[in-house]
């Protein structure tokens, strides 16, 4: 029987901006059942950036680990102390209604063990207009129309969307929890869900009770992000083909073909119709195309080598 009052643990995956991490942590204070522990997972060597991220009166423990092991290390630090673990990248702000709904769900449905809630709503904050102090005060900012976020949820690549992973912590044993670089958190979470699928009910659904904070303008080139993300998706597709050959899990929560298509289509639209982010989108697209070209070249080389071996 599940617990009547589950104890929550919140993991915030911090990468670059302490303001975003702080916004995510600060939102948890408004929850009716606040998390018993808050863990900030940061890449090793970047602890100093997140030194003062804890809001006043809230205790946040920091776990520093190598980039792919951040989530696994944070979950390990919570083991034995909480019943339910919530993991989210920095910048995802969750409303009290989201936690209340999740709490009811896990109490009522004992077979439900994990899920990924996608957050399509976006709050854009212009850092140049002087509106981005250390405390972003996301709750006070106007939300975009719900229709717009629903439309974004339908067409946007899951890799670029804000996401929350929740799971019963005892079911996470012998599950590989890997994280990737910036972007791709939703995909990493869904890969964890694919492993959990055989253990109980897993769900992927959009939620309107939260928002994904983005700081604008984005002046960085998107080439590295596009290359890294598309290359990761190509590698996953290859790994899935190899796993199918040896009887690995056959079904998945993420359709990698559709994901790649969504990724390219969205960036193409942004690079043509976008305003401030056109340069970022165009370079992102270039990076993704370069990754695709490289993947095809590698595949051709492997096929040629195999043919020559015969």
């Amino acid at each position, binding site marked *: *029987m599940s617990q009547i009052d589950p104890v929550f643990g919140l993991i915030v995956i911090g990468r670059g901006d302490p303001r975003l991490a702080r916004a995510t942590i600060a939102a948890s204070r408004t929850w009716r059942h606040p998390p018993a522990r808050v863990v900030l997972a940061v890449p090793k060597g970047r602890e100093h950036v997140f030194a003062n991220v804890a809001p006043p009166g809230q205790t946040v423990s920091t776990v520093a680990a190598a980039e792919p092991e951040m989530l696994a290390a944070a979950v390990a630090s919570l083991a034995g102390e909480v019943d339910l673990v919530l993991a989210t990248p920095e910048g995802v702000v969750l409303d009290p209604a989201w936690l209340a709904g999740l709490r009811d769900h896990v109490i009522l449905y004992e*077979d439900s*063990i994990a899920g990924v809630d996608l957050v399509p709503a976006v709050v854009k904050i212009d850092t140049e207009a002087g509106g981005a102090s250390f405390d972003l005060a996301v709750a006070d900012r106007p939300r975009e129309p719900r229709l717009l976020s629903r439309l974004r949820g339908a067409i946007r690549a899951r890799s670029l969307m804000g996401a929350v992973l929740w799971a019963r912590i*005892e079911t996470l*044993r*012998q599950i590989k929890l890997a994280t990737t670089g910036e972007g791709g958190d939703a995909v990493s979470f869904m890969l964890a869900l694919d492993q959990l699928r055989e*253990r109980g009910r897993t769900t992927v659904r959009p939620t309107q009770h939260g928002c994904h904070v983005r700081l604008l303008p984005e002046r960085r080139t998107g080439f590295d992000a596009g290359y890294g993300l598309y290359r990761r998706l190509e590698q996953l597709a290859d790994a899935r083909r190899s796993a199918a050959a040896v*009887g690995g899990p*056959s079904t998945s929560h993420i359709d990698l073909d559709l994901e790649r298509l969504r990724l390219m289509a969205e960036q193409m639209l942004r690079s043509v119709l976008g305003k401030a982010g056109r340069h970022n989108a165009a370079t992102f697209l270039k990076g993704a195309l370069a990754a695709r070209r490289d993947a095809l070249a590698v595949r051709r080389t492997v096929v040629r080598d195999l043919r020559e071996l015969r």
Partner: protein
Amino acid sequence: MKAALVFAGPTAATATFRPYRSRAFIGALADAGIDVVLIDLDLETEQRFATVPAERPGLVSYRNHVDRLPLILAQERLALVQTFGATAELGPVWRHAARTRTPLVHFVSSEGGIVDRPAGGARLLTGLGRGDRGFMQWRTRHASRHVAGVLGSNRADMGRHFRNGFFPRSRFSIVAPPASARPPAAVSPAVVERRKIPVFGFYDPEATPETLELLLRAVALTGQSDLFTLRIAPRALAGVVSLPSAVSAVEAADADAFLREVDVLVVPRADDRAVVPVLAALSARKSVIVPDTGALTEIVDYGRRGLLYTAGSAYHLAIAINVMAQAWGNRPFSFEGVEEAIGRTTPEALARVFAATWRRLA
């Protein structure tokens, strides 16, 4: 409180469901204040399935066709109906029971459960022609909206049902471990003999050739000849498939007797019937290798008390066997909480879970 236990269809007559119509279980329900009415429904009118009667004095039982169910329910003035059986065969039962507006609870087991759709399969109209995914499944799923609560022997099979759209109006789901007919004989850990080379064992009197072939393929895939030995029981299994020289078939009266001779129990099947030898092995403090789905995963506490592998994959089973053999001197498993896990499968403990669930609805 008066509740009906409805066993419907040929699947409900199998060994998996016998503990739920046993004298111990029904007696424990009576102790918990539940008056039980036993109803056997034969969905196939031509042949009547043979069920073991619960020999309990004073127990009211019926054996009839499914269209008589509303009449029986109205006559008995029941507070609740609990159904057992294969999901695919229960659509008419749920429809008929819903006519009396009695709350319905269904028990999901690995036997007769819904399986996930394979990846890359036919979709939309092309899939309608298939028997397991066609119109009948849609009708059963539609009928499952009458089910107000779901009990299950494990999270994995319940999850498959919910994922496939079954029980859309279920108000809650409760996990009750699969029943074991009797608690395994306790063996003191002090008498466990430690060998240098582990002896792996496989015990399943009902093993199918497919199960045995999966195990033997995994043993061949390990590529090891002197890292472990494998014994299978009972000896009659040697006639099912041809055994390689490294595998020996031995005679064993029961799982407890067999487990005295082996160090690690390997379980290639994932259904609820494999629970008994696994509980016996854990009780005797023997390591287990079990598939990563179904009730076995929960009994080994998701890998804390045993090694998991991807269900149905000989490749991953071979990796698990190699890991267990190579880490033999220093296995990272704990037997903490084993007695509690075994205690949850007794008829008395199960009856308490069932009674508490029914009281939530009635």
